[in-house]
């Protein structure tokens, strides 16, 4: 699925930490999004009841996914659409490029879709001579820059306006000023002409509705509406779990998604597509295709411990509260999905704890993510479980395994524990100044490079207690 990054996570993190501009931009964005979310959650009465209900709806859907996928398929067909099933990313690429070629598409417009990133769709379409225009402003910027998203809600968070103006100016063949209205006006103009001439519109799917065969797009810019109203063919690509059973359920999840993602009550546009246009209509698509993608999701589904990771509604709030993401941004994770949710699903979707098993360690298990998740996925818990799974599977460094083995031997019993601490207390003496160790020696340096280490006390609490007991 993901193209494997060449460096290890720690190296990617170190590289990211040097990018001051990105870090400043990320801090500003996540602070704004988090505080907006807090306000919006307070404004809606009984927020915890909504979370509980959203959790129940998603749990019920995922646990009955076979039934609801069948229902969805039946109803999309009843509404006049067609449904295709892609087990792997390659299947999805084949199906979608096949559809585009069938319709002799020269130009495709795309509204934002993480699953199409996941399956690496754009290069596949471009390879068969199809021009693909990303129309979400951030995705368009990234397309021009040749980069991948670094956040699932605000994908180009790491780019500043000067960089954006440079990219736009190159396309325009003249200088585009870097103020927001100028940049927006340019994008509007150039993408509007793409919408008007595109043969095929490709979208993601925020929520499909099983009982009616509907597909819901949640956007702010209007590109979702344009992508589905003007081109004659619409292809919606859907991660197989992105569904709710009924319209009622849609209201429930729509009440938490925008609030959690950006702090809005609702996004500017929520479009519910119920098949292609009816005969009497003029705009809207003539052909509607739904491509349902597995690409490793069934692997997660089969695992009762991690199945709940599929409840995710892609709100991005876990990114916004993650203290690690805050420092390193999205690219350091090295995968399509970063942040807390990405650290859980990437090793599982890829079925690879050896390589991607590094990601669950990109966390202090602080629990902020699980606390903010609108569908109550205990992400911090899943991260811990993945670590355990990784060790059980034998993917561990010899040295680390040895170190914990030693630790266990000494800490198992009070006598050996006391011995170890006494030895450390004596052994450290040459290194201690004013109660602290500063020396940046091997083994210590990972701590002492940035912090002083307190010296172990001459008398432990145990010693003090013993003494007190004996003197009574």
């Amino acid at each position, binding site marked *: 699925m993901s193209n494997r990054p060449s460096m290890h996570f720690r190296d990617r993190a170190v590289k990211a930490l040097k990018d001051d501009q990105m870090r400043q931009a990320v801090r500003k964005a996540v602070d704004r999004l988090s505080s907006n979310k807090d306000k919006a959650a307070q404004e809606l009465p009984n927020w915890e*009841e909504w979370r509980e209900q959203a959790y129940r709806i998603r749990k019920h859907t995922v646990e*009955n996914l076979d039934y609801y996928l069948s229902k969805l398929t039946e109803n999309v067909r009843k509404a006049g659409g067609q449904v295709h099933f892609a087990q792997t990313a390659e299947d999805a690429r084949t199906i979608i490029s096949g559809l585009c070629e069938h319709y002799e598409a020269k130009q495709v417009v795309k509204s934002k879709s993480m699953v199409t990133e996941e399956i690496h769709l754009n290069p596949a379409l471009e390879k068969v001579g199809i021009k693909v225009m990303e129309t979400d402003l951030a995705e368009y910027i990234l397309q021009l820059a040749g980069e991948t998203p670094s956040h699932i809600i605000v994908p180009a968070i790491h780019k500043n306006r000067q960089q954006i103006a440079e990219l736009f100016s190159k396309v325009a063949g003249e200088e585009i000023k870097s103020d927001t209205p100028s940049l927006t006006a340019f994008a509007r103009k150039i993408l509007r002409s793409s919408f008007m001439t595109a043969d095929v519109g490709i979208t993601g799917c925020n929520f499909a509705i099983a009982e009616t065969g509907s597909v819901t797009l949640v956007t702010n810019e209007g590109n979702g509406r344009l992508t589905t109203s003007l081109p004659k063919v619409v292809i919606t690509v859907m991660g197989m779990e992105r569904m709710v059973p009924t319209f009622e359920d849609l209201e429930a999840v729509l009440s938490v998604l925008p609030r959690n993602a950006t702090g809005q009550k609702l996004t500017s546009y929520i479009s519910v597509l119920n098949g292609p246009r009816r005969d009497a209509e003029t705009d809207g698509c003539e052909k509607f295709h739904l491509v349902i993608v597995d690409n490793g999701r069934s692997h997660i589904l089969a695992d009762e411990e991690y199945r709940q990771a599929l409840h995710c509604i892609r709100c991005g709030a876990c990114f916004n509260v993650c203290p690690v993401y805050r420092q390193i941004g999205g690219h350091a994770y090295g995968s399509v999905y970063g942040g807390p949710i990405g650290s859980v699903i990437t090793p599982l979707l890829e079925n690879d704890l050896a390589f991607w098993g590094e990601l669950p360690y990109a966390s202090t298990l602080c629990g902020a993510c699980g606390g903010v998740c609108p569908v109550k996925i205990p992400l911090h818990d899943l991260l811990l479980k993945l670590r355990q799974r990784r060790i059980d599977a034998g993917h561990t460094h010899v040295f680390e395994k040895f170190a914990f083995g030693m630790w266990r031997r000494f800490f198992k019993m009070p006598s050996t524990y006391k011995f170890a601490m006494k030895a450390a207390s004596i052994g450290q003496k040459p290194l201690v100044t004013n109660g602290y160790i500063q020396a940046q020696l091997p083994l210590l340096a990972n701590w002492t490079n940035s912090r002083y280490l307190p010296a172990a006390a001459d008398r432990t609490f145990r010693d003090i207690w013993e003494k007190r007991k004996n003197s009574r």
Partner: protein
Amino acid sequence: MTKISENQEQEAAFLQTVANALGRDKPAGNAPSRKEAGPPVFWREQKFENEQPLEQFKANLENLTGKVMVVQNGQEATNQIRVWLKSLQAKTAMLWDHPELRKYIDVSQLGVKTSYWNADRPRKSLIETAEQADAGITWVNYAIGYTGTIALFNSGTTGRSVSLLPPTHIAVMKKTDIVPTMSTVMRDLLERRHQGSLPATVDFITGPSRTSDIEMDLSIGVHGPFRVWTIVIEE
């Protein structure tokens, strides 16, 4: 356009994989039982005062830079639209060919060249007209007080492009079209589905087009309209 075939084998294998993952021999055929669907119980049971939906609608949409003008009748509505169009220096407007709009709005008084979205003209012409119009004028199927949203059901005479392509969207409604929450709209949609009359597209529009993609700086009017101005006729 010719129809492309769907691969039944791929479909069967896919659903079989999902069923197996859930510990089943084959995909479940019967609807699973559910305790509670939809929003929390308290949400469905809440009561709203008479004036609340309109008050909330106005407060919410104005908070998003939209406008909500309450008028007494069709003539006042027409006047207001004329004033707005003049302020925009508009030359043309396109309207939904909707019976309520025809009833309340006298297009001859609007001071701009107007056209209706209906089957009288081919697709290319309709879309081009909408693209070039300075304003798109629609009725609403519902307005939702709780979020400042208008819900538009699209059809042959109520095209999507009218509320999407022009830089300004003017929506007209009666006060009784304003409902407290989305729940009412969802119930209606389900009812229509049962009657086989579910619209091909339902658009929930909450304020103008926007983005914060550029350095978290709010920008209004990215791909959709810059302005959503509404008129509520209090008859």
